[in-house]
């Protein structure tokens, strides 16, 4: 019987793929966990949309600085070598293709790499977009980290997003609690599946056609 990954295991798996020296923006939620699992011999520079480059971990309790928060409004620290800039410059980094990677949460991803992660289209709740669209449109690569299906079991990887789009054709790779999937020019290519789950079972939980890479491997949460 297959065991889906925990949120931490998804974060840990994605962290393994972040290259040494990369400039990375971690979206709100699951992606934020990734920083905890990047191997210590890699130097990764985290950017935050509110003008921080070179963010460090959360401060010890009692040492929070009101002027040092990340995009999720959580307290952070600065690493030696950090730089502060204003918002317009921070978004020039994001929109201008200077970030190597954006790791984002997702409501839905389509087989074309369309991303929906800012709105469920609920008319009662006020909409809020923040920097999601700038980041999705601008980073050199976009990885989405999310559960493979919703709580009610509906696939989040779909032929066509039904939720409002954040940006079309931007997602390069999807890390779920069941698989690692590349968004290739010719569709979705499964790179890894959790042990105990076969391709057909994964396909059954996915709303878009998948192909299995020849060199696919078991997805180990480590």
């Amino acid at each position, binding site marked *: 019987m297959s065991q889906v990954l925990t949120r931490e295991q998804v974060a840990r798996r994605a962290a393994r793929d972040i290259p040494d020296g990369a400039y990375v923006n971690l979206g709100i939620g699951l992606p934020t966990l990734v920083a905890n699992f990047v191997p210590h011999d890699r130097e990764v520079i985290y950017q*935050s*949309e*509110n*003008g*921080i480059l070179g963010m460090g971990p959360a401060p010890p309790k009692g040492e929070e*600085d*009101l*002027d*040092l*928060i990340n995009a999720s*409004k959580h307290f952070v620290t*600065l690493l030696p070598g950090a730089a*502060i*800039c*204003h*918002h*317009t410059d921070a*978004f020039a980094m*994001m*929109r201008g293709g200077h970030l190597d990677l954006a790791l984002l949460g997702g409501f839905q991803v389509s087989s074309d790499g369309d991303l929906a992660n800012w*709105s469920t289209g609920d008319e*009662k*709740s*006020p*909409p*809020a*977009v*923040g*920097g*999601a*669209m*700038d980041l999705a*449109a*601008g980073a050199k690569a976009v990885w989405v980290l999310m559960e493979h299906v919703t709580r009610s079991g509906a696939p989040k990887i779909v032929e066509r997003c039904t939720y*409002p*789009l*954040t*940006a*079309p054709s931007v997602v390069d790779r999807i890390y779920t609690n069941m698989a690692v999937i590349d968004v290739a020019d010719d569709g979705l290519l499964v790179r890894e599946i959790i042990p105990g789950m076969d391709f057909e079972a994964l396909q059954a939980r996915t709303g878009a056609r998948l192909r299995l890479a020849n060199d696919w491997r078991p997805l180990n949460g480590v």
Partner: protein
Amino acid sequence: MLDKRVNSLEEAVSGIQDGSVILIGGFGNAGIPVELIHALIDQGARDLTIVSNNAGAGRTDLSALLSTGRVRKIVCSFPKTSGSVVFDELYAAGKIELELVPQGTLSERMRAGGAGLGGFYTPTAVGTDLANGKETRMIDGREYVLEKPIKGDFALIKAERADRWGNLTYRLAARNFGPTMAMAAACTIVQAREIVDLGGIDPDQVITPGIFVHRVVAVPNPQPAGQA
């Protein structure tokens, strides 16, 4: 003599007319000019359009301003937060107009206003609902949305250090929208933790040159934003 210092918060916000567009700095609770916002509440201007990244948290500062009912419209990127209780109520009741703008576009539109540009083409929001009704254009094989400048009648900014010519520095991530909003407003009003003598800020370290600032008031011990 060029002296932008004013002696009180009341004087700092004097002359703000009903119907003004006011840019208010801050991201989350960092960089919010709490004391200037409360002075604006006391001043009483109404029918305001507020441009700010968030729509307030808790019950103080921006939330307190919203709860006066004097804000007709808010232009922001992320109004809905865990603490945005006042905004949520007003929005649900249809008592406030919202223009939702992607954060980088919001910042860039204000920069365009400050830099005298008539508009710009951005890839952000292409193919999404937030580009609905907006002009798009293919440039060198990529699609862009045309966005127009935002200018403020006033800006309320929180800085760390200022001098009497209006030169500013900021502290860490409290900088956020300050430098851009300062450029984009006809009258930029600053609360600074400290006002130093001319020459007290190294010219290489000035973040907002004084030309973009019109009034400076000292607030040595600013209150945190977003309080209950």
